[in-house]
């Protein structure tokens, strides 16, 4: 099959794995953590090679979007599209990045990070 000339040029190629989509269905912060659902590995077997690899990586331990992009060697934007799809399909659950609002929540998080660092 010959592709029509695409004015976006080379950049499109990495997005072949997302079937050309470049916008994730939801925004995911790079440090947000993803956990595989119990059947994720099994169910993603036919969801495409990259989704399968992502499921396998999230199986033993929670991984951030940044880790998934780095370990699969996918560009961050591509990994974000795939991960967002997998969250929508129930293959992965998205865990929250640090709270941005609310004095009490933010102070609580800072306190926990501080004691975590002191224990290192």
């Amino acid at each position, binding site marked *: 099959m010959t592709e029509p000339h695409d*004015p976006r040029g080379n950049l499109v190629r990495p997005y072949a794995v997302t079937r050309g989509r*470049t916008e994730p269905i939801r925004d995911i912060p790079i440090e947000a953590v993803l956990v595989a659902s119990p059947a994720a590995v099994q169910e993603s077997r036919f969801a495409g090679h990259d989704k399968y690899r992502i499921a396998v990586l999230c199986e033993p331990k929670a991984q951030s979007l940044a880790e998934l992009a780095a370990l699969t060697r996918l560009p961050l934007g591509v990994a*974000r599209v795939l991960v967002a799809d997998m969250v929508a399909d129930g293959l992965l659950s998205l865990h929250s990045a640090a709270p941005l609002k609310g*004095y009490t929540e933010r*102070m609580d*998080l800072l306190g926990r990070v501080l004691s975590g*660092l002191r224990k290192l």
Partner: protein
Amino acid sequence: MDFASSERAGAPPSEITSAKIVIAGGFGVGKTTLVGAVSEIEPLTTEAVMTAAGAGIDDASKVPEKGTTTVAMDFGRITMAEDLILYLFGTPGQTRFWFMWDELIRGAVGAAVMVDTRRLTDAFAPLDYFENRHLPYLVAVNCFDGAPRYEPEEVREALAIPARVPLVMCDARHRESVKAVLISVVEHAMTTLVAEHEQGIVVA
């Protein structure tokens, strides 16, 4: 620390929170070294595709045919508890990637701007950047072997660092030194948050 036993013992925690601290600074200032000194994993690199002009990170639909570039960020991880992970993100060294910094600092707890006393002027651009953003940051002077030794106050004066911004000396290769830097970042973030709360900027 190893949380493997608690992870395996039962279901994963219902909510895992992740926090990040940004390690900024000019080219070759020791960002990756600092991250590696405390990370439980070998620092990883993630790449983002973008235009050289800086429009639309990773967004191919807005990208004209030329001038795309790949920018690499490296990062490390510290699993603090079953339900708490701290990530340390190093900024890309080159200043033409500012727009990538905006994505990196979004939601961060705070930042450390690293300074190399052999190339003090490299710090001006990153310091300017943080002066114009709403994120608590401090300055970490990385003490390279054979670099000129300055008193902290001399560095502060040379770089016109405001009094409210903490300045610490460090050795990015040493875990204890890096721990101290990160603890200072978090303490500074807490002090800033308390002050903003008292001024009514941040509400409960």
